[in-house]
């Protein structure tokens, strides 16, 4: 009977075209507003590394003290050189990495082209395994390479396309900022959103990095961070070594811990480390450390912009209002056909069959509204920059999953809105209808 009811539903769209158009437009606009804002919300609020997010932790150590801390006694969001290197030396986690953003010029071979700007990260070797960076060619480098401070580099697929036409460039030499590097790997497209591993500098959203270079090598070249650098007190350093010893924070540390026991152990280690620094006179305050996993860290850093939540709530509210109107319109549309319902009941339709017929008819209205909503969502997704920062607005896109969701939401919501009108239709008294006709 589904096919029969669907057919009746499609026919019914042509009946009372003004009423049908009102319902379709109400659902279309409601679903489009919701899906457009949801497209943004989904992009900024998802788990960027679902398989490992509960095992990856970023440590924080209070190197500024209670007078200069962040709001609520929160330690700085990154580490300075001294603490970062201390964590690496302690080697207390299964895997650990340090990273900071770098900006370099890529000098093309043969001087045929102009130099390219390349953004990337100085990282330690565990970075690639911890974050499951996919490789098209080659791989990352080893711990020995970290220690040997080799001039190795991993480039992005996009940079490989630009420089080598997408060929396997492993083993090729790349001149970055006047220094030659050996390409050891080409990463496949990898740009988790939000960029959980560097919220400190990016806030969560940035273009895909072009290069990854050896952390120690970057330090040797006295490469300043290409991202945020946050300091407290009077800045008196003039040399690179003075900068490294200062309280400026610019390095993001990550550790991988497999179990709650490991997490508790690492937290103890951080506390002990801070206590040692206190005893040594470097910190004049009690240990103040944090250890948060990926989702806790994104929550702490408020990666989801408030405007995204607000606009989603407003759009959903608008959709609910549209649906309430639709309930009234469906009721009017269905009850106009009380006579037909009476005839169908007289000819053998059960209440359940009338209920099913009208729910499916509502589903066809929802489907039509969903198709209109899809068009409006496409327009909306193209225009979200009016509401959001450009780097966030460009994340919203109409992919197949959003298309499916838009249609599903429109149909399901309309069918739910039809529960009461269809119930009323199913309870029409056939005798009264036939007597009155």
């Amino acid at each position, binding site marked *: *009977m589904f096919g029969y009811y669907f057919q009746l539903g499609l026919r019914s769209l042509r*009946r009372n075209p003004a009423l049908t158009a009102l319902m379709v437009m109400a659902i279309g606009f409601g679903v489009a507003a919701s899906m457009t804002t949801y497209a943004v919300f989904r992009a900024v609020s998802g788990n960027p590394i679902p398989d490992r997010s509960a095992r990856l932790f970023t440590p924080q150590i209070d190197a500024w003290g209670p007078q200069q801390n962040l709001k609520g006694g929160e330690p700085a969001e990154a580490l300075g050189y001294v603490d970062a290197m201390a964590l690496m030396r302690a080697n207390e986690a299964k895997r650990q990495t340090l990273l900071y953003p770098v900006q370099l010029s890529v000098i093309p071979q043969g001087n045929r082209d102009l130099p390219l700007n390349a953004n990337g990260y100085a990282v330690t070797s565990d970075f690639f395994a911890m974050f499951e960076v996919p490789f098209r060619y080659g791989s990352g480098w080893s711990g020995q390479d970290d220690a040997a401070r080799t001039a190795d580099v991993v480039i992005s697929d996009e940079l490989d396309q630009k420089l080598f036409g997408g060929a396997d460039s492993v083993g090729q030499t790349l001149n970055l900022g006047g220094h030659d590097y050996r390409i050891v790997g080409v990463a496949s497209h990898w740009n988790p959103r939000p960029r959980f591993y560097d919220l400190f500098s990016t806030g969560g959203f940035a273009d895909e990095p072009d290069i990854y270079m050896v952390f120690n090598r970057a330090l040797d070249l006295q490469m300043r961070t290409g991202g945020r650098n946050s300091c407290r007190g009077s800045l008196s350093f003039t040399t690179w070594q003075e900068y490294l010893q200062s309280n400026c924070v610019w390095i993001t540390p990550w550790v991988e811990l497999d179990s709650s026991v490991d997490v508790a152990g690492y937290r103890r280690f951080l506390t002990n480390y801070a206590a040692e620094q206190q005893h040594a006179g470097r910190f004049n305050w009690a240990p103040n450390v944090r250890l948060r996993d990926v989702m806790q860290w994104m929550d702490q850093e408020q990666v989801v912009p408030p405007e995204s939540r607000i606009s989603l709530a407003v759009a959903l509210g608008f959709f609910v209002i549209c649906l309430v109107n639709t309930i009234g319109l469906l009721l009017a549309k269905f009850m106009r056909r009380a006579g037909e319902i009476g005839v*169908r009941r*007289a000819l*053998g339709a059960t209440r359940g069959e009338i209920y099913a017929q009208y729910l499916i008819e509502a589903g066809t209205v929802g489907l039509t509204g969903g198709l209109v909503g899809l068009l409006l969502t496409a327009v909306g997704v193209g225009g979200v920059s009016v509401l959001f920062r450009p780097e966030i607005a460009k994340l919203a896109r109409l992919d197949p999953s959003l298309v499916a969701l838009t249609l599903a939401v429109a149909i399901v919501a309309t069918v739910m809105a039809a529960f009461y009108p269809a119930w009323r239709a199913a309870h029409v008294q056939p005798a009264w209808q*036939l007597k009155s006709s």
Partner: protein
Amino acid sequence: MLKMTHLSKVYRTEVVETYALRDFNIDVKEGEFVAVTGPSGSGKTTFLTIAGLLETFTGGTYHLDNIEVSQLDDNARSKIRNEKIGFIFQAFNLIPDLNVFDNVEVPLRYRGMKAPERKERIMGALERVGLASRAKHYPAELSGGQQQRVAIARALAGSPRLLLADEPTGNLDTQMARGVMELLEEIHREGATIVMVTHDPELAARAQRNVHIIDGQVVDLAEDPRFHAHVVEARQGQGRS
């Protein structure tokens, strides 16, 4: 086929009880053609809607094809309506945005019949009423008589045991009414049981048996003076028209 014993139907409001049918008794045998007559408001249509399981009753018993129907739930009543009863209404009650074929198909759909059998039955019923060539027409494209023939085809398509007709010629002119009546007689001759509610004494006279209802009760035609008064009134009314 249809037996009501001491049946009553009461409409209750907060202040008043109105008996539409009271101590109502009728027994229609299989194959009979019964005309039910009576003045307006006497309870004819209420009787017909109860007979057609479109309405429940307040007291008494009703056996339809030897089934006591008072305890049946909505699904069972719908199934009986679909399989055993065919309705013909004064106002035809065709669904305006379905064509003739689709209108006749409605009861067969609810019976869960396969498409080839549906088609065979629909075309058979339309041929029977002489409208096979109008299968793709919509009700608005047909005359009143043709619409009533479609309604009869719809009632016949499911091969019901009982045909219930409520003023089947009430909205038709004399010539069309005669055609419809001849069709009903033909259907009856082929073995159908027909119960027809009518105001028209001439039509009632063409039935095998007349049952007269006054004030919600079947009355003895020979003894009840109210009947004679009504017949005179009805004939005068017919003469005026």
